[in-house]
């Protein structure tokens, strides 16, 4: 049996929607989760988007931490009956970190000291990769809870989609590196002089840097690590466990893209990298695809079969001959028509090239570029036929 997006979703417990920003990832993630819920699964969709797009889509209020289940009444208003359930949650990076600290801090005093620590605030709010790390950590927590049998993750709007895969490792390297023990501990216990005895170059380098920039981070970092030793000593193992979910055979990566050139370049890079990391793509969703308006077209007038920008005069001539519309209007309608044909043709060619370059055959879904808004529940349900009934495999 050939795989389809439907069979991919059915066979996996975790679906990770990856792709660059602005391609409709959030909408796609919500659409997949809703479909799962319609098919009887206890589905959850986790978004990491600070812009609250998912809440917009599902018509629920989302706040950090626990999920909000989409109510049966709201669903019924949109004519949707679920045999399963649908829960939406949004990752609030700061409160996720805070609750991690709360779970692991040895005492309330240490907890307070850490929450006020400037390095910690940086780590929990703006540290590169911190959001991505927390997303994976949350995913692993959700999966362990056993409350859901389908979790759909919408990845953060990173500069590059790949950050989602690499950032947790980078953060882990940073927090677990032996260097922490190597230079923080002597400093904590005995201050500068001891540090300089342990490693004179390191002491010198730090002093130079702190003097040059005026940024004294060492005290804050030491304080942070000293308080959280238990948690960060084993951070590498922790990250390994978290990555385990991503590498599980029950997890499927779905690439979400649009037919624009820059987006496809990014998608190509991402799909190669994913294969290299042992997390291969299982399906591709192309959003915002312009489709040709070609109905059966008179071969006598258009021997080539398709109609392009260069055919504007021929289209206009043909319509003028029919005498349906005044010539002025014919010109404008014909110009618009051939412009749309050009866009559709460009999209089709770019997608074909991308698909030909894929390393393995995966189901590919094309969702048309809808001009009507599809970001409410009813809209998501209207997308189902495009995602789940039309997928072609190659």
């Amino acid at each position, binding site marked *: 049996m050939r795989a389809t997006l439907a069979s991919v979703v059915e066979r996996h417990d975790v679906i990770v929607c990856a792709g660059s920003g602005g391609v409709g990832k959030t909408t796609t993630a919500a659409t997949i989760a809703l479909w799962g819920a319609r098919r009887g699964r206890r589905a959850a969709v986790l978004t990491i988007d600070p812009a609250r797009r998912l809440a*917009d889509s599902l018509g629920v209020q989302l706040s950090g931490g626990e999920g909000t289940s989409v109510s049966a009444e709201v669903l019924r208003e949109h004519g949707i009956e679920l045999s399963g359930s649908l829960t939406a949650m949004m990752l609030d990076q700061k409160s996720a970190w805070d609750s991690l600290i709360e779970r692991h801090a040895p005492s309330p005093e240490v907890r307070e000291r850490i929450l006020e620590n400037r390095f910690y605030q940086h780590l929990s709010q703006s540290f590169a990769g911190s959001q991505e790390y927390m997303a994976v950590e949350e995913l692993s927590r959700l999966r362990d809870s056993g409350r859901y049998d389908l979790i759909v993750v919408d990845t953060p709007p990173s500069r590059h989609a790949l950050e989602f895969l690499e950032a947790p490792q980078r953060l882990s390297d940073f927090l677990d590196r032996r260097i922490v023990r190597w230079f923080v501990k002597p400093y904590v216990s005995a201050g500068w002089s001891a540090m300089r005895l342990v490693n004179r170059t390191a002491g010198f380098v730090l002093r130079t840097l702190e003097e040059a920039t005026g940024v004294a981070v060492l005290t804050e970092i030491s304080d942070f690590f000293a308080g959280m030793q238990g948690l960060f000593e084993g951070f590498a193992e922790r990250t390994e466990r978290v990555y385990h979910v991503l590498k599980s055979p029950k997890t499927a990566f779905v690439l979400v893209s649009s037919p624009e050139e820059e987006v496809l370049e990014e998608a190509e890079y991402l799909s190669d990298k994913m294969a290299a990391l042992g997390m291969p793509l299982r399906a591709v969703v192309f959003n915002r695809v312009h489709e040709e308006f070609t109905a059966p077209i008179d071969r006598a007038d258009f021997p080539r079969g398709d109609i392009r920008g260069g055919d504007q005069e021929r289209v206009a001539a043909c319509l003028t001959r029919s005498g349906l519309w005044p010539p002025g209007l014919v010109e404008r309608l014909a110009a618009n028509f051939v412009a749309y044909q050009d866009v559709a043709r460009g999209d089709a060619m770019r997608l074909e090239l991308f698909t030909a370059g894929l390393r393995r055959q995966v189901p590919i879904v094309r969702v048309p570029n809808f001009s009507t808004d599809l970001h409410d529940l009813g809209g998501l349900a209207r997308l189902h036929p495009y995602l789940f009934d039309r997928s072609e495999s190659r």
Partner: protein
Amino acid sequence: MTSAGSLLDRRLVFVAGKGGVGKSTVSTALALSAVRRGKRVLLVGLDFDDRGRSIAGLREPEGNEPVETTAGFFRQNVEGKAALEEYLHLVVPVRRVLRAVFESRVYQYFVAAAPGLKELMAIGKIWYEVDRGRWDLVIVDSPATGHALQYLRMPKAAYEAFTTGLVHREAKRVWSLLADPVATAVTVVTVAEELPVNETIDICRQVRDELVLPPGVLFVNRFHSPPFSVADVERASTARRKGVSAACDALSKAVLAAAEEELSWAALNEHCRKRLAVETGWRLVVLPMLLREEFGFADVEALSVMLDEAQAVRSKPRRVEPRS
């Protein structure tokens, strides 16, 4: 507000917005428009990584040196860590000391751990480019939203957090430039569709109310303006139903479908444009959707010509001799 009327008369224009709305296209079009007015322009790609992104076929410059794309139009990547190294070269003049610093593992750690240091250094580098007088205008094309605002937030946070020292002084200077409405404008790019609009309203609010930075222009990109009215298409549709000739039956049907598609985009765009105008209070500049088989550099140039005409962007053409 005389200065507000001319975006390109500023010295620094920051371009923010969510992913996928055409920030790089608009930044490049702005740069081309300024160049046409005889200005010497530096377009900075802020924190793009080394893979390079193509802007309508133009490759990003490699490394961190300015590259002259066409006469008077320079492009450069600015990245925090490289900027920090450049800065350290300025303040730590002894080369042997610097080498020891850069080779040390502690240095890598320090760079990663110091809150906001990289962002501060990147924006400090931009300040330096504006201040050194080599350019008439510096345009900054920024990464996805959250991150872009992070850069803008940093100088103020840094000079408040560090009450003495070099970073404090530098940060304060950078902040004075960013907050100066005569020198600087923060612009935002969006498309007129429901979800991007919600996010854009939030970005505009943050820029004006939280960061208290001088709002420039809100560019509404890919705006559909059909060359026919709803009434035109209705009449055409009625005529087709009563049609006397079957000669172009399939063709006329497809042509009408394309026309309806265009009208429906236009209606959505117009609805969103109104919301943006009311809810942000920013001055809008609308840029058209260009339906192309392949969007290329000629299209960016076409957009830049339209920017020449836009009141909010326009500046009096004047010859500016490049300062050495």
